[in-house]
């Protein structure tokens, strides 16, 4: 992270995370917002609705749809018609959108959507984990995860810039932890309209629904071309690796804040133990690292900011000299007993010359609290791997045996 706190201090206001996001969306000049209320996303859409009611977002229509399915479907139409299009959702709402997610990315529509991460039912649970967005990882959306309210606000503008890049044209999910970020009041610098105007050019797609140039969108592709449609999506994801870095760098030039591009690192240069994680848990991990570094433990953090595209090279470069890598996942692939970050990190290192043990911990499901002590315990487990190898590759954290 690079940031001039002294400069930012003058401009800071204490607002709720959801408000910071809504304000960022407003500054990005959307033409169509379409959303359905669901906890804990509600404050974002309420704040946007109030902006609309106050006439604060010019040239914008807000559609109060009857479901998440229609929320995103409406944006298929609006984005194809050349409108900058935004939505926000979470959990069950995101799962309901599943079919539309593929449709948006396949049609190469640069929709931006904030996902306020929440656990998935059953059992129903409104608190934070990453099962909702991780379960949509293969839908062709770029997925970025933010560690705090400033980052999710800043990421919103970066998301539009990446999505609408003519070489990319992929939808972007910006992910923020439910309640932990969405409902917390923190000092943030809200995006300034004039600087955003400089940062984010107007959305002008090459093709749009236009009676003067009547193109057909959404044709069906038979086996002769379907493969190539998928290949082109993957190619755009590959190109996005650099665009995500560029968008963060350009943002830094104009706004003076950098939260990482594909990844960010903290104390990794000489680290024997590298923890990997996404989202707000990053703050807790940094606290644990500070505490342990003071005791001489060589531990660092690799924050994964972009989960799709998955930053394989960037991860390899950071972990190649470590003695153990620990992936923390607020999600699980039930039946594999692994979280996605763990599985994909292992896969990224396989077939390479990098020989570092990787272990995984599934943590914080359904909003289970993650105290610094839990992170310290995990680091203790990692130390044992350095000394005597892996005994348990992937496991649940802080299981309550008395409930089993």
């Amino acid at each position, binding site marked *: 992270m690079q940031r001039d706190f002294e400069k930012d201090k003058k401009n800071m206001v204490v607002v709720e995370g959801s408000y910071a996001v809504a304000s960022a969306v407003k500054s990005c000049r959307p033409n169509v917002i379409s959303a359905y209320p669901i906890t804990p996303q509600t404050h974002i859409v309420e704040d946007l609705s109030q902006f609309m009611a106050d006439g604060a977002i010019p040239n914008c229509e807000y559609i109060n749809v009857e479901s998440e399915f229609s929320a995103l479907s409406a944006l298929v139409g609006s984005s194809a018609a050349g409108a900058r299009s935004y939505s926000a959702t979470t959990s069950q709402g995101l799962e309901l959108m599943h079919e539309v997610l593929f449709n948006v990315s*396949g*049609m*190469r*529509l640069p929709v931006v959507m904030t996902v306020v991460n929440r656990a998935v039912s059953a059992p129903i649970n409104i608190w934070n984990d990453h099962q909702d967005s991780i379960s949509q990882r293969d839908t062709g959306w770029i997925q970025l995860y933010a560690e705090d309210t400033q980052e999710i606000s800043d990421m919103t503008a970066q998301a539009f810039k990446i999505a609408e890049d003519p070489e990319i*044209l992929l939808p972007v999910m910006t992910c923020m932890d439910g309640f932990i970020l969405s409902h917390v009041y923190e000092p943030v610098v809200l995006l300034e309209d004039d600087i955003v105007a400089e940062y984010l050019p107007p959305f002008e797609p*090459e*093709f749009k629904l236009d009676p003067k140039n*009547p*193109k*057909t*969108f*959404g*044709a069906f*592709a038979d086996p002769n*071309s379907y493969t*190539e*449609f998928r290949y*082109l999506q993957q190619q755009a994801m590959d190109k996005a690796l650099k665009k995500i870095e560029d968008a963060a760098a350009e943002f830094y030039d104009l706004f003076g804040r950098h939260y990482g591009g594909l990844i960010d690192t903290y104390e990794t240069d000489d680290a024997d133990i590298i923890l990997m994680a996404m989202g707000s848990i990053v703050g807790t991990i940094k606290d644990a690292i500070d505490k342990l570094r003071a005791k001489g433990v060589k531990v660092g953090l690799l924050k994964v900011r972009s989960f799709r595209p998955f930053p394989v090279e960037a991860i390899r470069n950071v972990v190649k000299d470590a003695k153990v890598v620990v992936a923390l996942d607020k999600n699980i692939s039930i039946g594999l007993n692994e979280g996605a970050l763990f599985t994909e990190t292992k896969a990224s290192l396989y077939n390479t010359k990098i020989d570092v043990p990787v272990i995984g911990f599934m943590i914080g499901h359904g909003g289970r609290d993650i105290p610094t002590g839990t992170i310290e315990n995990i680091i203790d487990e990692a130390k044992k791997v350095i000394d005597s190898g892996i005994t348990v590759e992937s496991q649940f954290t802080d299981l309550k045996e008395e409930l089993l």
Partner: protein
Amino acid sequence: MTIPLGGVCAPGSTLVNKTGGWRTFKPVFDYDKCIKCKLCELLCPDMSVDPRDDGFFEFNYDFCKGCGICANECPKDAIEMVLEEK
């Protein structure tokens, strides 16, 4: 031809697909009976009844699938369905 992003297609481009080969029976006009009422042109689901300068119509056999709606609906029985000879 490379795929434009999202697979956007040009208007009216199914014209490359000549569906006339589907036909078993072909419609044939009897211009002595035709009263130029335009019903055949209006109803044709394959847009294969083209107007001529003299107000009569002719079939576009490149696309006509031989459904026979024109012959069935013609108020003057001015269209006959004739077996295709292949």
